[in-house]
C-alpha cells in the first residue's frame, strides 16, 4: 500500500488546477492532528485542523513549548501523530512508509544540520542519490542548487561545512532540502542561529526563492517579525498548538483575534505594518527635473514654470544628483558646481514603507527620492503622501479583517450548531478513517 501511495505523491491532486507544474507545491491538510506523549495527561498537540494551499508559505509562530515544532515534525512524521490525518496533495500520508514520505518533503533545520564529514556537494546530492537519480543528473543538480541559493558552485562545491560561515551553511541546508525538487518544504527555525544581519539576508533570499519556485512551505519560528516578513499566512499558535489566529500578516496586525495574539504582535503594530508594503505600491509623486546638461537658462525657466520651490537635478545617467532651490539658482551665477544640496539618501521601489519613512524622517526637507533598478530617478515620496497611503492601507486592512472575522464567526457558529445537533459528525469522521484503511 505504501508503494502505491509513494508513487502517487509527486503529482498534486487533479483538483488543484496546477497539475502541469508538478513540483511547485502541494496542498497540505491537517485533520484533527493530535500528539499525546505517554505519561502526560494533556496532549502536546491537540486536534489541529489546518489547510495550507499549494504554493503558500505558512508560518507557525508561537511561544516556545507551544507545540509548533511538534506539529511541523508530524507533517513528515519525524514525530508519529497519535491521532488525526495528514493529507499532502490530496494523498493521505498518515500511514505510508515514512522514509519514502520524507524523501518527497524538503526539511531544513536550525544550525543547518549539514553532515560535517561530507562536502557541500555530497550533502546536497544526498536526497537525489537516495531517490535514484543518475550520477550525472545529481552532479548537475548540485551545481544548479548552489547557484540557486547564491553560492558559487566552483568555489563551494568541494568545501566542508566547517569551512563555511553560518549563513553559508544555512544556504547549503536549504539547497539540500530543495535538491530532489520536493513539492513541500518544512523549515524548523532555520534562521534561528545566525546573526541578525545574515538572518535578514537569508529571509530576503527565501522570499526570492519562493517567488521562483512556488513550493508549499511550512516555516516555524518564535520571532513574530520574521513571521510577518515571510508569511503569506501566519498561524499564531498557543499552548498545545491551538490556533489562536490563522490569517494574512496584514489581518493579524490590524485585527488581532484576541489578547493572546495582540500580546504576541507586541507594540508598534502600525509600524510593523509598514514593513509589508513596498514603495512601488504607494503613490509616488512626480517632481520637476532637469539634467546637468541642460543650459542654465532653461533650468531657470523650468523652476519658474513648475510653480514649486525646488527642482531635482539629475546626472547624465538620469540618477538624482542635487536638489536646487530658487535661491540656490539666484546665487549660482552661471555655474551649478556649488549650488544646491546633494541628494544623499534614496530608496528603491522595492524598499519597504518603513525604510521610506526612515529616510523621510531624517531628510531635512521631509522627502526622499525613489530610484529604479539602476539608480535612475522614478519619483519622490514625501511625508504627506506617505501618511495618506498608510491611512488608506490601514483602513483597507481593517475592512478586510472585519469581513474575515465575520465569515469566521459564521463558520464557527455553523460548527457549533453541527456539534450540538449530535455526535453524528464526529463519529462519522472517525468511521470514515477506519473504512479507508480497511
Amino acid at each position, binding site marked *: 500500500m505504501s508503494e502505491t501511495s509513494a508513487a502517487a505523491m509527486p503529482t498534486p491532486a487533479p483538483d488543484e488546477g496546477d497539475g502541469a507544474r508538478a513540483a511547485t507545491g502541494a496542498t497540505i491538510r491537517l485533520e484533527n492532528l493530535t500528539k499525546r506523549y505517554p505519561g502526560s495527561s494533556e496532549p502536546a498537540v491537540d486536534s489541529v485542523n489546518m489547510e495550507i494551499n499549494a504554493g503558500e508559505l505558512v508560518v507557525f509562530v508561537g511561544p516556545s513549548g507551544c507545540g509548533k515544532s511538534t506539529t511541523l515534525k508530524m507533517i513528515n512524521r*519525524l514525530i508519529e501523530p497519535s491521532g488525526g490525518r495528514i493529507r499532502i496533495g490530496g494523498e493521505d500520508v498518515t500511514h505510508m512508509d515514512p522514509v519514502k514520505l520524507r524523501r*518527497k518533503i524538503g526539511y531544513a533545520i536550525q544550525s543547518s544540520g549539514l*553532515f560535517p564529514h*561530507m562536502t557541500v556537494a555530497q550533502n546536497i546530492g544526498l536526497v537525489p542519490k*537516495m531517490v535514484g537519480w543518475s550520477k550525472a543528473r545529481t552532479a548537475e543538480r548540485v551545481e544548479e542548487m548552489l547557484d540557486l541559493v547564491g553560492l558559487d558552485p566552483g568555489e563551494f562545491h568541494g568545501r566542508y561545512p566547517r569551512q563555511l560561515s553560518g549563513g553559508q551553511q544555512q544556504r547549503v541546508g536549504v539547497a539540500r532540502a530543495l535538491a530532489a525538487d520536493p513539492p513541500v518544504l518544512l523549515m524548523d527555525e532555520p534562521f534561528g542561529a545566525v546573526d541578525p544581519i545574515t538572518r535578514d539576508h537569508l529571509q530576503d533570499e527565501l522570499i526570492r526563492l519562493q517567488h521562483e519556485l512556488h513550493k508549499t512551505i511550512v516555516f516555524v519560528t518564535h520571532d513574530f517579525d520574521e513571521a510577518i516578513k515571510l508569511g503569506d499566512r501566519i498561524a499564531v499558535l498557543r499552548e498545545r498548538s491551538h490556533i489562536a489566529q490563522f490569517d494574512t500578516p496584514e489581518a493579524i496586525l490590524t485585527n488581532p483575534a484576541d489578547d493572546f495574539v495582540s500580546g504576541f504582535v507586541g507594540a508598534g503594530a502600525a509600524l510593523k505594518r509598514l514593513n509589508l508594503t513596498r514603495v512601488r505600491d504607494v503613490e509616488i509623486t512626480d517632481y520637476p527635473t532637469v539634467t546637468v546638461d541642460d543650459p542654465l537658462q532653461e533650468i531657470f525657466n523650468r523652476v519658474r514654470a513648475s510653480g514649486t520651490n525646488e527642482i531635482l537635478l539629475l546626472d547624465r545617467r538620469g540618477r538624482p544628483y542635487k536638489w536646487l532651490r530658487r535661491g540656490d539658482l539666484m546665487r549660482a551665477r552661471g555655474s551649478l558646481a556649488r549650488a544646491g544640496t546633494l541628494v544623499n539618501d534614496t530608496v528603491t521601489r522595492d524598499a519597504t514603507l518603513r525604510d521610506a519613512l526612515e529616510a523621510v524622517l531624517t531628510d531635512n526637507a521631509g522627502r526622499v527620492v525613489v530610484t529604479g533598478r539602476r539608480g535612475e530617478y522614478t519619483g519622490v515620496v514625501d511625508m504627506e503622501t506617505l501618511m495618506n497611503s498608510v491611512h488608506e492601507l490601514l483602513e483597507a486592512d481593517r475592512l478586510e479583517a472585519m469581513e474575515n472575522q465575520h465569515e469566521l464567526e459564521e463558520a464557527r457558529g455553523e460548527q457549533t450548531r453541527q456539534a450540538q445537533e449530535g455526535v453524528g459528525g464526529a463519529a462519522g469522521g472517525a468511521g470514515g478513517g477506519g473504512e479507508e484503511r480497511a
Partner: protein
Amino acid sequence: MNFWDYLGSRHQQLLADAYQHASAVFQCMVVATLLGVLIGVVTYRSDWAGNLATTATATLLTIPSLAMIGLLIPVVGLGVPPTVIALVLYGLLPIVRNAIVGLRGVDPALVDAATGIGMSRLARLARVELPLAWPPILTGIRVSTQMLMGIAAIAAYASGPGLGNEIFRGIASLGSRNALNQVLSGTLGIIILALLFDAAYVVVGRLTIPRGIRV
C-alpha cells in the same frame, strides 16, 4: 654473549616470533573491532543496555590475564584457541566503550536531519552515525591494540604463539647466560611492534577519517 651477539645469532627465531605476535594481535583486533562495534551499535540507543555492555567488558578486563588463560585451558585446550579468546575479550572494552560514547555523541540535530531527509535507519547508521563516531572508535582500537600487545605475551603460558615465548624461556632459565637476553629481546620486540602498530594507526586515521571532521 652480549645482547647484540644474541640478536645476531637468534634473529631468525626472533623475527618468526615477532611476526606471529603481530599476526595474532592483528587478527584478534579485527575480530574484537567487529564484535565491539556491533555491540556498540546494538546497545547505544538504550541506557541500560549500553551501560550493561560497558560494565560487562570492564569486568572482563579486571580478570588477571594469567588467570584468564589458565581458566580457558581446561575448556578449549592449549595453543591458539585460548590466546585468541583471551585477546578478543580483553580487546573489547575500549572499543565497546568508545563506540557507545561516539555513537551517543553524534549531534541529535544531525540524526534528526538524517531522518528528516529520508534516510532509513540502516543508511543513517552507515552514512552518518558511524562515520561521525569513527574517530573515537579508532582511538579505542588503538588503546586496545597497545593493551593486547602486552597481554599477548602471556599467551606463551598456554603454548600460544609470539614473543612471549622468549620472555617465558628467559624467566624459566634465570641465572643462565642467555636468560636476560631472552627476556630483553622479547620485551623490546613487543615495544617495537607496539610503536609500529601505533604509527600504522596514525596512517589509518589519516586515510579513513573524512577531512571535514579531522582535528
